C-alpha cells in the first residue's frame, strides 16, 4: 500500500448488562431459552408502551464520561423506521440529533506510539431480536425458513461512533481493545465479542498519501474477534487499493466479513440503503440530565485503564506487566492492595503478570478461585527482600499459596525452602570447605578470584541449597583473605 493511506472509523455497539431491558422489565440474560424473556413491550404488541430504564441511562453517561464527552442536558429518543422480521415494532427506538454524549476521545497506544481517536457520539438504542435463518449460508436471502428469538429485543445497546482518525488495521485493533477495557473497567458490560455483547463495524476508505478528500467508504460488519477486525480491515484496504489501481471505483456499500474465506462481500449498496424517516419518539419525554447529575457521573468514574497503567508503570513495574494486570482487572486490583500493604511493586507486578497468569492458565481457573490474598503477596515479597527466600524458591511458594497450601511463611517452612542468611550460621560451613580445598584457597590469596564460584557451589551443596549465595560469596572472600 505504498503511496496510499487508509481512513478508518469504527462504530461500536455495546450491550449493557443491566438487570432489565431498556424499555421494559424483562430480564437481560444471555443464553436463555428462546422467547422466554419477553413481554408485550419488547414484543411490540399493540398498545404496549416503552418506559426508559434509568440504570441504563446512568451507564451510558458513565461510558460517555469515560471518553470525556460532553453529557447532553436535553437528550431525546427518536424512532428509526425500517422493516425487518426481528425488529418487533418495525422501528427501533434510538437517538438521532440529541444523543446522551458527544465530542469525546479515547487515547490508545500502538507499540509505544500514542494516538488520540475522537469519539463523535455515544448514543442509546434498543437491540433487535435474533433471526436464525434456515439456509446453508445462515443468511436470509436463500433461507427456506427463519426462526425468531426476541430475548435480545429491547436489550439496552450503546453505540459509540469514532471519528475517522484511525489509519491502520493495528490502530483499529488497539482502539477496539482499549475500548473494551474501558467499558469493562466501568462495570457496565463484559464487552465480549464472542457472546456479541460488543460488536465492531468499520468504515474504511483509502486515499493517496497527502490527499485531503476522503475516498468512497465501505462499511464492514461481522467481525467476531479483534483478530478478524484487524484482518478484515487489512483485506478491505487492499481490495480498495487494488480496485482503484485497476482503474475501477470503490462503490459505497455495506460488506460482510467472512472469517473462513478471509474476504468481504457486498450486502447492500448505498442505492439500496433506506430512508429511516427519523422522528422524535412520541411515547417518551425528553430526558433532563442536569448539572448535578452530570457532576455525579464524572465524580463516580473509576480509575480508567490508561491512567492505571501509567500509575503502575511509574511505580517501577514493567510496561508489559502493567498492561497484563490492567487488562485482567482483578490482577491489578490485587496488585494495588498488596502494594498498599507495603509490598515491593516491581516484584509483585512480575509475579502477578507472569507466574500467576501462567498458573491460572495451566489450571484453567480464575484469580477469584485461588487462595491468593494481598497479604500473601506482601509477606512473600518481604521474605525475598530480606533474603529469607530465594527468588526461585519464591515462585515455588507462590504456586503453593495459589493452590491453597497456606501462607508463604507456612509453605516455606513446611517445604524447608528458607534460606540461611545468617552469616554466623554459615561461617562453619565456609571454613570447612576452605579447609578441604587448600589449593584453591592459595589461588585466592594469590589474587585469582575466579575459583570463588566453585567454592560457593561447594557450600551450597553442603547446605542443601538453602544458603544465601551472596552471603556465602562474601564470607569466602573475607575468610580466605583472613586465613
Amino acid at each position, binding site marked *: 500500500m505504498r503511496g496510499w493511506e487508509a481512513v478508518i472509523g469504527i462504530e461500536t455497539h455495546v450491550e449493557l448488562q443491566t438487570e432489565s431491558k431498556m424499555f421494559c422489565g424483562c430480564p437481560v440474560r444471555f443464553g436463555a431459552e428462546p422467547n422466554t424473556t419477553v413481554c408485550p413491550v419488547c414484543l411490540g404488541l399493540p*398498545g404496549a408502551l416503552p*418506559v426508559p430504564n434509568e440504570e441504563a441511562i446512568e451507564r451510558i453517561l458513565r461510558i460517555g464520561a469515560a471518553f470525556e464527552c460532553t453529557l447532553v442536558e436535553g437528550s431525546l429518543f427518536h424512532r428509526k423506521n425500517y422493516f425487518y422480521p426481528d425488529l418487533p415494532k418495525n422501528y427501533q427506538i434510538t437517538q438521532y440529533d440529541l444523543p446522551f454524549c458527544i465530542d469525546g476521545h479515547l487515547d490508545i497506544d500502538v507499540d509505544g506510539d500514542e494516538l488520540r481517536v475522537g469519539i463523535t457520539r455515544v448514543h442509546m438504542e434498543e437491540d433487535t431480536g435474533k433471526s436464525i435463518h434456515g439456509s446453508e449460508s445462515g443468511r436470509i436471502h436463500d433461507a427456506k425458513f427463519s426462526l425468531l428469538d426476541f430475548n435480545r429485543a429491547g436489550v439496552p445497546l450503546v453505540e459509540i461512533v469514532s471519528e475517522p482518525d484511525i489509519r491502520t488495521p493495528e490502530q483499529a485493533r488497539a482502539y477496539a481493545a482499549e475500548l473494551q477495557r474501558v467499558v469493562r473497567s466501568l462495570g457496565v458490560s463484559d464487552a465480549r465479542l464472542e457472546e456479541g455483547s460488543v460488536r465492531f463495524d468499520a468504515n474504511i476508505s483509502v486515499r493517496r498519501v497527502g490527499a485531503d478528500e476522503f475516498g468512497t467508504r465501505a462499511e464492514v460488519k461481522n467481525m467476531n474477534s479483534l483478530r478478524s477486525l484487524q484482518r478484515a480491515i487489512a483485506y478491505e484496504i487492499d481490495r480498495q487499493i487494488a480496485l482503484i489501481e485497476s482503474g475501477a471505483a470503490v462503490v459505497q456499500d455495506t460488506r460482510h466479513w467472512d472469517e473462513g474465506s478471509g474476504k468481504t462481500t457486498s450486502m447492500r449498496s448505498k442505492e439500496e440503503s433506506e430512508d429511516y424517516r427519523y422522528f422524535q419518539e412520541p411515547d417518551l419525554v425528553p430526558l433532563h440530565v442536569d448539572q448535578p447529575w452530570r457532576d455525579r457521573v464524572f465524580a463516580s468514574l473509576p480509575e480508567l485503564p490508561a491512567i492505571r497503567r501509567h500509575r503502575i508503570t511509574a511505580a517501577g513495574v514493567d510496561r508489559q506487566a502493567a498492561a497484563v494486570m490492567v487488562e485482567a482487572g482483578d490482577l491489578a486490583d490485587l496488585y494495588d492492595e498488596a502494594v498498599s500493604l507495603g509490598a515491593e511493586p516491581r516484584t509483585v507486578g512480575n509475579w502477578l503478570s507472569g507466574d500467576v497468569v501462567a498458573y491460572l492458565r495451566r489450571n484453567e481457573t480464575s484469580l477469584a478461585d485461588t487462595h491468593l490474598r494481598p497479604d500473601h503477596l506482601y509477606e512473600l515479597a518481604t521474605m525475598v527482600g530480606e533474603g529469607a527466600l530465594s527468588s526461585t524458591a519464591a515462585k515455588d511458594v507462590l504456586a503453593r499459596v495459589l493452590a491453597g497450601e497456606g501462607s508463604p511463611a507456612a509453605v516455606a517452612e513446611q517445604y524447608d525452602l528458607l534460606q540461611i542468611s545468617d552469616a554466623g550460621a554459615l561461617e562453619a560451613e565456609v571454613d570447612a570447605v576452605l579447609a578441604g580445598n587448600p589449593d584453591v584457597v592459595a589461588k585466592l590469596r594469590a589474587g585469582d578470584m575466579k575459583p570463588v564460584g566453585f567454592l560457593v557451589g561447594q557450600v551450597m551443596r553442603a547446605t542443601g541449597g538453602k544458603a544465601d549465595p551472596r552471603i556465602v560469596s562474601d564470607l569466602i572472600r573475607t575468610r580466605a583473605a583472613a586465613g
Partner: protein
Amino acid sequence: MSDLADLAVREAASLMRRGDVSSLEITNAVIDRAGVTESHLHAYLTFNQDAARAAAGEADAARAAGRNGGLFHGIPIALKDNLTTRGTETTAGSKILSGYVPPYSATVVNRLRDRYAVILGKTNLDEFAMGSSTENSAYGPTRNPWDTERVPGGSSGGSAAAVAVGSALAALGSDTGGSIRQPASLCGIVGVKPTYGLVSRYGLIAFASSLDQIGPFARTVGDAAGLLEAIAGHDIHDATSYRGDVPPISTALQTGVAGMKIGVVKELSGDGIDHEVAAACRAMYSKLETAGARVTEVSLPASETALSAYYLIAPAEASANLARFDGVRYGLRVDGDTTEEMMARTRAEGFGPEVARRILLGTYALSAGYYDAFYGQAQKVRTLVRRDFEAAYEDVDVLVSPTSPTTAFPIGERIADPLSMYYADVCTIASNLAGDPSGSVPISLDSAGLPIGLQIMAPALHEEQLFRVAAEVERLAEFRQRPELATSEVRPA
C-alpha cells in the same frame, strides 16, 4: 319504574348501594336493550353476555362482602375495541387484527375491573381510530341511534351509540382529533377528552401517540366526571403519564359559572358551521351569561391551519405505529415467497383504504427531503396552536365552540371525499395539538331531530373548569330527549 338500561350511572349506583337493585339486574336490562338495538345499530364488535353476567354476579357478591369499588361498582360499561383486553379479541376495527386476543389488558381496563365495573364488550370504531363516521371499520359501520341512515360520528362511534341507546350505561373511547367529542355530539351524549397524560395510554392501540387520549362517554356530565376519575392518574407503564394529582373533578360540578370568563372561539363561529348548530350554540352562550358568566369572543388564529398540521402529524406517527402489523408475530398473515412479500401482502390485504392512505401520507411527510416542508412545518404550527391557547387562557377560564360543524350526516355521504370527512374534526383538533382537555355536552336537537353538542375547552390539567361549565350547560340545556330506539325517557340525575 322505567327501564334500568336508561338509568344514569349515579342513579344506578345509589339504587345498588341501597340494595334496591343488583348489578345483575341492571346488566340484564342493558343486555336486553342491546338485544333490541344491536341489529339496528351494530355498536358492538364483541358483546360478552356471559362474561358480563358473571362479572355482575361478582360485583354483587363483592358488595355483599362489604367491598366498595366506588361509583362504577357493578355498572355495565363498554370499551372501544382499540383498548386491549386480556383474553378478549381486540381488533381496532381492522381486518389485520382479526382474531387477535391480547395477553394483557390496558391500564384503564384493569382500573375499571379493579373497581368491579362490568365490561359488556368491545365497541365498533373506524379502523385504528382513523375516521369521523365509524364507516371505516373493517366490520361494517355503526349507525346513529337518532337516525339509522346517519353516521354516529367517529372514530368512537360504537361507544357513543351504545351509551346513547342504553346498551351501556357509560363507555370509554379514545380521542386523537375529536374521536370522543364528535361522536358524543352526534349521538346526543357527553364525551370528554382529558388532558394529554392524565389517563394512561398503556394498552390503547396507538394511532398518533402524541395526540391519543382515552376518555369517558356518559349520558350525564356527572357520570362522565366519575368515569374519568376512575381511570385517571399516573401509570408507571406510560412514560408520558402525568405524575401529579388528578384535578378535583366531581367536586366542581355544583359550583356554577358565576364570575367565570368564557371565551367564544371566533374562528369556529361563522364560516363552515351549520347555521342551526351556530344558532344553538349562541343561544347557550346567552344562557351562560344569564347564569353569571362573562362571555367574550376570543381569536385563535392558528386554529385555521391546525387541521392541516394535524393531518401531517397524526399520519406521520401512525405510519410508524402501524408498522408492527406485518404478519410476523400476530394477527393476519398472507403468505408470500419472501419475507418482504409476505409483509407487503399482509398489509395490503389487512389495512383498509383510509388507513393505507394515512400510512402513505405519513410516510411521505417523514421522508428525506420532505420532512422539513411537511412534518417539521406541522410541528411549528403545533407550537403556534399551543401559544394561541396559552394567550387565550390569560384572558378567559374556558373556551367554547360547536363540537362539530354539522349534526350527523348520512352514511356514505363523505366516504368517497376524504377532505370533507377530515373537516368534521375542524372544531376538535386544536385541543389535541395543544394537549388540553375538551368535552362535548348535548344542548339541543336541530330541525331534523339530530343532537347538537357544545364543546368546552380548558387549560391543561384544569378539568375542574371544564366540568364546572359542562355541568352548568347541562342544567341550562335541560336536554332530556332520547333516541326513539331507546324505549323510555332518561330521567334527570
